């Protein structure tokens, strides 16, 4: 049971949203859309988390477009037209990108196969080491005889 505690701890740690509460000046919808877009000048930060000037401007533009009645898809397309698909945090699910989406599953399958083979091998070796009843009796007789 004790080994489960770190797992439980990490499960909760990863469940936290990295952005926390959005500042009150922009609607939460702006931050939801911005969190799906990259901050162009940062490394590994979304336009929702980053405080770089360009991210602030992106959030302002998203808010403007929402006021104009544009949908989240239209807003994302606006940024893709300028930056390419690189700007999207989640690569679109088509073509070669499927490999990316399936990679964790493939990794898990490869690991599972390796682990299964390891267990099978270990079981076989254990069986080899086990003594039959006759061998055991023969050994016991030898010990008693000595």
């Amino acid at each position: 049971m004790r080994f489960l505690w770190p797992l439980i701890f990490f499960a909760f740690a990863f469940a936290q949203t990295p952005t926390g509460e959005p500042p009150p000046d922009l609607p939460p919808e702006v931050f939801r859309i911005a969190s799906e877009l990259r901050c162009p000048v940062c490394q590994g930060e979304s336009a929702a988390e980053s405080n770089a000037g360009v991210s602030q401007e992106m959030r302002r533009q998203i808010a403007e477009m929402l006021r104009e009645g544009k949908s989240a898809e239209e807003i994302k397309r606006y940024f893709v037209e300028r930056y390419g698909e690189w700007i999207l945090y989640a690569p679109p699910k088509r073509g070669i990108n499927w490999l990316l989406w399936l990679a964790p599953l493939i990794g898990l399958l490869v690991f599972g196969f390796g682990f299964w083979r390891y267990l099978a091998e270990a079981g076989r070796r254990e069986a080899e080491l086990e003594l039959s009843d006759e061998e055991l009796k023969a050994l016991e007789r030898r010990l008693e005889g000595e």
Partner: protein
Amino acid sequence: MRKWVYFAIVLVLGGLFWWGMQRDPGKLKSVLVGKPAPDFELSLLPPYRAEWGERFRLSEHRGKPVVLNFWASWCYPACYEEAPILEAGWRKFRDRVLFFGVNTQDREADALEFIAQFNLTFPHGYDPRGKVGIDYGMYGVPETFFIDAEGRVRYRHAGAITAAELEKRIREVLP
């Protein structure tokens, strides 16, 4: 035999990771290449108003190739390295090519100080919010776009530009 398979897997994954880490988004080809340059209108910084007017609209300057440079006074050292190169390029090609600087996310006073420091004579617009930069899919200052006489983006250079690169790219957009 099996040991080698595992070794190969680790090597391939490690190589992929290393390759990914080396990649710089600034080196990605701009999606605008081959497409019409997004139009914009900016107010010009005071030193250029006498010659170029209060505002600058890109589409009003069609017919001449344009070197569009995004910069900021806080962009040190890259913008400081390329400023004299751009000015020299402008002096050499000003009859055939228009140079335009977009001062991005900067304070006006700092921008003017930068302009005075390098005695920049080609026109500069003021874009404190960096709106034009987003329209051009800019990753970070400095970036230089080469636009041909028909108004199409032909090349995007990320980072400080060298004199040789500047001249090479200008010759590509010259009619």
